[in-house]
C-alpha cells in the first residue's frame, strides 16, 4: 500500500511539475529541498504562499524553525487545514517537524511558508529568495520561482 501511495505521489508530482520549471534540488546536511515555488500575488493582497518538498535522508529528526526573505517583512511557517467547511490557518509556533527518513510536502491546502507584508507583489516569472533555518541542518538560501496565482493546483481546469 505504501508503494502505491508513493507511486501515486510520484505520479501526481510528475503531473504537476509540468506546469512550472523547477530549480535544481537544494541540499543542506541531510535535507533535500526540491520543487520550491511561490504563487503570484493578487494585486491588493499583501501575502503570498511558498511551497516545497523537504526530504530528510538522515537518521535524526530536524525541524524548519524560521524563514525570512528580503521581499517580505516577515515570513511565517503555517499550517492550513479544513475543518469540515471551515478553512483554518495557524502559525506553527514550534516550527515544522521534518522527521528522520521522511518527506514533508508544503503544498496548497496544507503547510506553507507565508510571506507577509510584501511590498512588491510577486509576479509570475520572477524568483523570490528566502532563507530557511533548520534546527539541526542550519540555514540555507532557496530561490522560489513565481508561478501563476493558482500555480500547481490539484484541479487544473483553466487552460
Amino acid at each position, binding site marked *: 500500500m505504501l508503494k502505491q501511495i508513493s507511486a501515486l505521489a510520484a*505520479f501526481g508530482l510528475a503531473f504537476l511539475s509540468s506546469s512550472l520549471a523547477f530549480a535544481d534540488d537544494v541540499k543542506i546536511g541531510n535535507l533535500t529541498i526540491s520543487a520550491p515555488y511561490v504563487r503570484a500575488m493578487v494585486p491588493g493582497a499583501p501575502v503570498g504562499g511558498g511551497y516545497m518538498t523537504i526530504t530528510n535522508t538522515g537518521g535524526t529528526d530536524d525541524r524548519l524553525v524560521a524563514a525570512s526573505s528580503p521581499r517580505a517583512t516577515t515570513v*511565517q511557517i503555517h499550517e492550513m487545514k479544513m475543518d469540515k467547511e471551515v478553512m483554518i490557518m495557524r502559525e506553527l509556533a514550534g516550527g515544522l517537524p521534518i522527521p528522520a527518513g521522511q518527506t514533508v510536502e508544503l503544498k496548497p491546502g496544507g503547510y506553507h511558508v507565508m510571506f507577509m507584508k510584501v511590498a512588491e507583489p510577486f509576479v509570475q516569472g520572477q524568483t523570490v529568495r528566502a532563507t530557511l533555518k533548520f534546527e539541526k541542518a542550519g540555514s540555507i538560501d532557496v530561490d522560489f520561482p513565481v508561478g501563476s496565482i493558482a500555480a500547481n493546483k490539484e484541479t487544473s481546469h483553466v487552460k
Partner: protein
Amino acid sequence: MSNRRRFVATAVALTLVAGAGAIGYATFLMVPEVQATGGLGTAFTLTDDRGAPITEKALSGHPSLVYFGYTHCPDVCPTTLYDMAGWFKTLGPQADGLKAYFFTVDPERDTPEIMHSYTGNFTDRITGITGDPTEMQKAIKGWRIYAKKVPSPDGGYTMDHTASVLLVDAGGNLRGTIAYQENNDVALQKIRNLLQQD
C-alpha cells in the same frame, strides 16, 4: 515507474476523483431540502468595491455565487476566486444572468479599493463587498458563515472562515454549496442546476 505501478496510481487517482464527485453530487441533492426552509440571508447595508452602497437586494432577481473570504489569505481565497473566474469562462453566455459576490470577513483591513483591485485581478464578474464590521457580521451570521479572528504571535491576525461557495437562487434562497477544491465538473453541474431553477 513501472507500467503496473502507473496503472495502479492512475486507478487510485480516478477512484478518488469519481468518489469525490459522487459524494459532492449527493450532498448537493440533499442540501436544498435541508436548508431551503432555513430562511438564510438577512438585510444588510454594505459597500461594493466601487464604493457604492449595496444591500441584500443585490442577491435577488438572478442566481448568485456567494463567497466569504478576505484578501490576507494566501491560498483558499485566491484559489476559489480563480475557480469562479474559470466557471464564468467555461459557462460563457449560459452564465450571463449569474452574479458573483465576494464578501470580506475582514472588513477592517479590506477597503473598497483593496477589494476592487483584488477581485478585478480574477474577473470583472465578481463584486467585492465590504463595509461597516457590524453590518458585515449581520451578513456573516445571516448566511451561517463561520468567521473567527485568530491573533498571531506577531500582533497581527488571520481569519478562520467557511470556505464553501454558496449557490443562491433568484429568490435569495440557498440552493447548495460548492466545497473548497470540489471536482470541477461537479461544481459546474451544480451551477448549471442553479441556473435551470431560475
